[in-house]
């Protein structure tokens, strides 16, 4: 497809994945990506690896954050990448390839999650702390010592983040992932999940507060130093 054609193409490009239409409206063509895609479409399949490699992390992150189990997340990520390969001809280049791929992965993980839910009576046993009006009540009110991004180098913090995320109910986790991990807007998150914006906001609040409570034990500085004293200074 020529650049001029892309500029004048009126219908938004789309791909149906898992019963959902993924449509893109912004023109963000990367010449290298475009070349790799053309090579794959011409039958040079090894170019697909080059195309996907920079996106692997984002794809896995998208699925892992939605699915508790790492093996399921890997499975969903693989399925999404294979689906992208099969449907590559439908990708019209009006978004970054990585954006398109991450959205397929998110859908794949959400579909897997919904299948799992059908086999379970309850989302989670953890219903959190609520006041008499049903609002989530934060658990820790001590001064928050900021956990710096550099602390993500430590395995302890990354594990704690994964555990905290896994402790959320699926309906709270999927909202947090789309909004805070994938950086979709509240409106986009609502559209993707078929929810009202108000429901997204309510779930997001709960998810963020619960994540904060789960990570509070590290605020004594143990995330950045790797020390484990928090176990002694925090009663939970």
């Amino acid at each position, binding site marked *: 497809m020529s650049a001029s054609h892309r500029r004048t193409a009126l219908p938004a490009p789309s791909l149906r994945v898992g019963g959902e239409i993924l449509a893109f409206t912004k023109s963000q063509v990367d010449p290298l990506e475009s070349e790799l895609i053309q090579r794959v479409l011409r039958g040079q399949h090894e170019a697909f690896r080059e195309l996907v490699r920079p996106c692997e992390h984002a794809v896995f992150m998208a699925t892992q954050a939605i699915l508790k189990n790492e093996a399921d997340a890997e499975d969903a990520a693989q399925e999404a990448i294979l689906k992208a390969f099969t449907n590559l001809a439908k990708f019209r280049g009006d978004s970054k390839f990585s954006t398109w791929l991450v959205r397929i992965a998110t859908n794949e993980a959400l579909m897997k999650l919904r299948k799992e839910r059908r086999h379970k009576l309850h989302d989670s046993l953890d219903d959190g702390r609520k006041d008499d009006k049903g609002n989530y009540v934060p658990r820790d009110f*001590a001064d928050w010592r900021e956990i710096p*991004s550099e602390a*993500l180098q430590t395995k302890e913090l990354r594990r704690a983040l994964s555990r905290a995320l896994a402790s959320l109910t699926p309906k709270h986790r999927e909202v947090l992932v789309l909004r*805070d991990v994938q950086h979709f807007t509240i409106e986009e998150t609502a559209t993707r999940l078929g929810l009202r914006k108000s429901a997204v906001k309510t779930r997001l609040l709960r998810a963020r507060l619960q994540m904060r409570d789960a990570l509070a034990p590290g605020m004594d500085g143990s995330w950045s130093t790797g020390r484990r004293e928090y176990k002694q200074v925090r009663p939970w």
Partner: protein
Amino acid sequence: MVIEISCEEVWREVSNYLDGEITPQLRARMREHFKGCKHCTAVLDGTRNVVQLVGDAKAFLLPAGFSDRLYQKLDRKLSEDGRL
């Protein structure tokens, strides 16, 4: 004059505060509340920190062998489809 707001109300809106999803009036009331309430400031700081951490690409790493398994699967699919 800014009308006072309770801690419970602040907790309900703290996420919207971070997303800029509240009215300027409510923002002003919350900002005033934070000046005098250490607890709510801790809730705000911690929540902001969580958003920043989970949004960081380093938060979730690939499992060992992820790429190898992925491309093995892709190669299998290509040979099944007769494309290799």
